[in-house]
């Protein structure tokens, strides 16, 4: 990356950090969701920086679009009257949460710093045709399996939603 790309990288990193902090610390769930979507936009920027524009597009469509709307539905189902759902005795233990986040991340970062010896200076840009050929050729089974998993999850979701109504 050249120096301009480094500046863009730092910008996206700050977007991820700010969005992630809002997502994990906001009291209101809808604000946390906005933080999550902001962090997803930062990750899409990271994909663009590593020469993967198709992944960046999918990141925006799947994560920021589909998953964001799904979580928004969950927020609507569970909206509390006062919006104070996260206040409680557990918030008196923030140090444990910080340790839970910091320890694995710091350990893995130290490992990456020690063991990453060689890396390409420029990431190759893969044409979408090549990705499509991979999905329908060598990785066709994985592609089909993920659609089965999605179908099973959605069917399970619908069944779980109907269960309560049947009992009434």
């Amino acid at each position, binding site marked *: *990356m050249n120096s301009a790309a480094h500046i863009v*990288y730092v910008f996206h*990193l700050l977007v991820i*950090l700010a969005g*992630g*902090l809002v*997502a*994990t610390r906001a009291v209101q*769930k809808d604000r*946390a*969701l906005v933080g999550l979507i902001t962090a*997803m936009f930062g*990750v899409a920027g*990271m994909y663009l920086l*590593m020469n*993967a524009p198709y*992944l960046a597009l999918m*990141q925006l469509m*799947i*994560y920021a679009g589909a*998953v964001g709307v*799904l*979580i928004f*539905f*969950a*927020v609507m*189902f*569970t909206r509390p009257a006062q919006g104070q*759902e*996260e206040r*409680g005795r557990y918030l008196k233990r923030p140090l*444990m*949460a*910080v340790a*839970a*986040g*910091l320890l*694995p*991340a710091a350990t893995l*970062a130290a490992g*990456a*710093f020690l063991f*990453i010896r*060689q*890396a*390409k200076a420029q*990431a190759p840009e*893969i044409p979408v045709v*090549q*990705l499509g050929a*991979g999905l329908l050729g060598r990785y066709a089974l994985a592609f089909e399996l*993920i659609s089965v*998993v999605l179908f*099973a*999850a*959605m069917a399970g*979701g619908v069944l*779980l*939603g109907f269960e*309560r109504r049947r009992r009434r």
Partner: protein
Amino acid sequence: MSDLFLFHLAGLLLLGLGFYGLARRRSLVGMLIALELLLNGAGLSVAASCQLGGGDPVAGQLTSLLIMGLAAAEATLVVAIILVVTLRAGDSNIDSVSELKG
């Protein structure tokens, strides 16, 4: 510091924030949001490893896509679970579903 390490740092930042959120949040929706952060970090690290490391870039991008698909499936199921827990227990706080009857 190589570019690969920088991208891994971003992925690890998401991992740390995800674990922090999982440990801090007490509502299922908050935990789901933290889990999505975790999976975002995993996808970013896999893609970076194959784009800038020695791996196959096509495999890396497709693995990252599969992680996105898994995250969508997991979010669908968790939203259904949240719906059921909210209908049964009145709220989506994990304290209200951590005790057994009897």
